[in-house]
C-alpha cells in the first residue's frame, strides 16, 4: 500500500506543476524525464522483473511511432485514436519477437542480440518502404488542437505523458503483488525451478514482452505527437533501446521506482554536463559516460538500492 501511495503522491505533485511553473525549459525537462521513465518502465517489466535483457526495444517503440504517424498521414485518422493502435502494433511486434526467440529458448546475450537484430531489420525496412516515408520519414500534419493530440503549450503533453507513466507505475506495482508477478520473477531467477513448480515459462515470458512492447508503442506514439516527426533512425535506432535500458539500470532493476529515479538522474546529469561544458564539443558526453560507469560500478542496485541502504527500516 505504501508503494501505491508514493506513486499517487509523486504523480499528483507532477500534475500540479503546470499551475506553478510556466517555464518551458522546466516543463520540457519534466516531460522528457517522464518520457524516459515510461520507456524505462517498459524495459524494466521484461528485463528487471523478467530477466530477459532486450537490446532492441526500439523495434516496439518505432513500430508504435510509425503506426501512429502513418495512420495520421495516410488515412487521416485522429491522433488520439492512433494511440491504441500504436500500443497494439508495438505489442504485436513484441509477440512476434517473443514467440520466435522464446520458442527457441534464447536467453541472456543471445536474446539481447536477436532483439538488436530485429530493431535493425525494422530500421532498414522503414528506410526502404514508401509507406513509412523512407529515409525522409513522416511529418505529422500540424493541427494545434487538443482534440488532435497536439497542444499549444507544454502542459497538455505533460498530462498525457504523466497518465502513461502512471499506467506504467500501476503495472509495475501490480507485478510486485500478483501471482503473475511472482511467476515472472521466478522465471527470472531460475527457469527450471519455475517450470518444476508449474509455471508455464514460455507463456509468462511472452506475456511480459507483449506488455513491455505495448508500453514502448505508447512511448512511440507520444514521441510522434511531441516532436511531430519520425524517421527510421529516430524510431528504430539503438539510441532508443539504450535510453530504455539505461534508466532502470541506473535507478534500480526490477523495482517500481527504479525507472523514475534513473530517468530523473540521467536527465539532470545530461542537462548539467551540457550546460557546464557546452562550449567544448564532446566533453559533456565524456563526463556523462564517466559518471555512468561510476554509477554502474559502485551502485549495482542503482539509486534505489543506495536510498534503501541510507534509510534502514524504510522499505
Amino acid at each position: 500500500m505504501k508503494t501505491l501511495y508514493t506513486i499517487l503522491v509523486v504523480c499528483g505533485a507532477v500534475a500540479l506543476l503546470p499551475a506553478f511553473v510556466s517555464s518551458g525549459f522546466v516543463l520540457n525537462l519534466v516531460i522528457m524525464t517522464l518520457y524516459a521513465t515510461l520507456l524505462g518502465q517498459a524495459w524494466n517489466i521484461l528485463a528487471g522483473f523478467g530477466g530477459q535483457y532486450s537490446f532492441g526495444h526500439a523495434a516496439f517503440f518505432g513500430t508504435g511511432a510509425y503506426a501512429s504517424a502513418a495512420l495520421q498521414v495516410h488515412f487521416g485518422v485522429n491522433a488520439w485514436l492512433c494511440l491504441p493502435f500504436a500500443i497494439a502494433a508495438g505489442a504485436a511486434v513484441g509477440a512476434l519477437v517473443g514467440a520466435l526467440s522464446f520458442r527457441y529458448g534464447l536467453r541472456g546475450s543471445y536474446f539481447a542480440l536477436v532483439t538488436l537484430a530485429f530493431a535493425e531489420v525494422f530500421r532498414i525496412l522503414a528506410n526502404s518502404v514508401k509507406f513509412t516515408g523512407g529515409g525522409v520519414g513522416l511529418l505529422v500534419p500540424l493541427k494545434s488542437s487538443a482534440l488532435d493530440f497536439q497542444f499549444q503549450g507544454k502542459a497538455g503533453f505533460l498530462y498525457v505523458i504523466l497518465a502513461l507513466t502512471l499506467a506504467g507505475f500501476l503495472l509495475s506495482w501490480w507485478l510486485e503483488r500478483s501471482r503473475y508477478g511472482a511467476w515472472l520473477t521466478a522465471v527470472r531467477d531460475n527457469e527450471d525451478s519455475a517450470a518444476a513448480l508449474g509455471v508455464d515459462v514460455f507463456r509468462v515470458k511472452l506475456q511480459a514482452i507483449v506488455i513491455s512492447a505495448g508500453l514502448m508503442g505508447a512511448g512511440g506514439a507520444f514521441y510522434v505527437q511531441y516532436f511531430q516527426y519520425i524517421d527510421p533512425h529516430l524510431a528504430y535506432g539503438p539510441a532508443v533501446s539504450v535510453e530504455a535500458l539505461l534508466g532502470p539500470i541506473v535507478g534500480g532493476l526490477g523495482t517500481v521506482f527504479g525507472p523514475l529515479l534513473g530517468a530523473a538522474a540521467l536527465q539532470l546529469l545530461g542537462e548539467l554536463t551540457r550546460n557546464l561544458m557546452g562550449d567544448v564539443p564532446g566533453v559533456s558526453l565524456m563526463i556523462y559516460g564517466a559518471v555512468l560507469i561510476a554509477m554502474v560500478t559502485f551502485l549495482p542496485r542503482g539509486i534505489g538500492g543506495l536510498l534503501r541502504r541510507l534509510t534502514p527500516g524504510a522499505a
Partner: protein
Amino acid sequence: MLEARHVSISFGGLKAVDDASLVVPPGTITSLIGPNGAGKSTLFGILSGFLKPDAGSVRFLGRDVTGLPPHRICRLGMTRTFQIVQPFAGQTVRENIAVGSHLHRPQRRAALAHAESVALRVGLAGHLDKPAQDLTIAARKRLELARALATEPRLLLLDEVLAGLNPQEVLEVSPVIRSIRDSGVTVLMIEHVMQAVMNLSEHTWVLNNGQLVAEGKPADVMRDSRVVEAYLGHGAAERLRAAGKQAHA
C-alpha cells in the same frame, strides 16, 4: 500412481537410461538408488517432463504423460525437486515457497499465508523473511522440499534431499518426509544416504548403467549380489561372501 514402461534415452553414444520400467504404488515412499552416474537423475528428468525419452512411456494417475512439458506435469500433481538446489536467490524464503503455493492460489495473500504454513511443516518457520541465498545448505534443501510441497502434489519426486546433510540433519529431515507420506502424498526419492533409504522407504529400485537391476524391500535389495556388484564392482559379491565365511570360521 506412477508407471514407467521400457523408458530409454541416449546422449550421443551413451545410453543414460536403458529400457527401464518401474512402478510407484500410491501412499508409499519408494526409493531409487544406484551408484553415481547410474542415470537416476536422468530418469527423474524423464518422469517429470524435463527430458523426452527416445522410447517408452510414462503414465501418471492413469494418464499418458510422456513428453508433456514440466509445468503441465506439475499441474497434474507430480512435482520434483532438484539435486543441486535451485532457489530463487534474490527472493525471501516466504516468496520462494509462495511461487509453489500460487499453483492453486491466484491470490497473493492466500499464497503467502499458505507458504507460511508449509514452512512450518518443514521446519523453516524461523527463516521466512531471510533471502534464500543466505540459507545454509541444509536449510536450502528444506526450502527445495517446501516449494515442491507448496504445489500440493499427489506425487513428490525428491532428488537427493538428504545429500550433503550431516547425520544429525538427516535425522531431523527424515520425520518430515515420513509426515509428508502420512499426509497422503506419495514419495519417490533418489537417495545415497543408505540409513535413510532403509528407514524411510518401503520399496527400492536399483539402477545401474541405466538399467534397473533389482527391486524389493530395501533390506533384501542390499543383500542382492547384483546390487553389491553395482556399487563395489564385478566379483565383489563373491569376494564378500568368501570373506564372510572366513570371518565366521
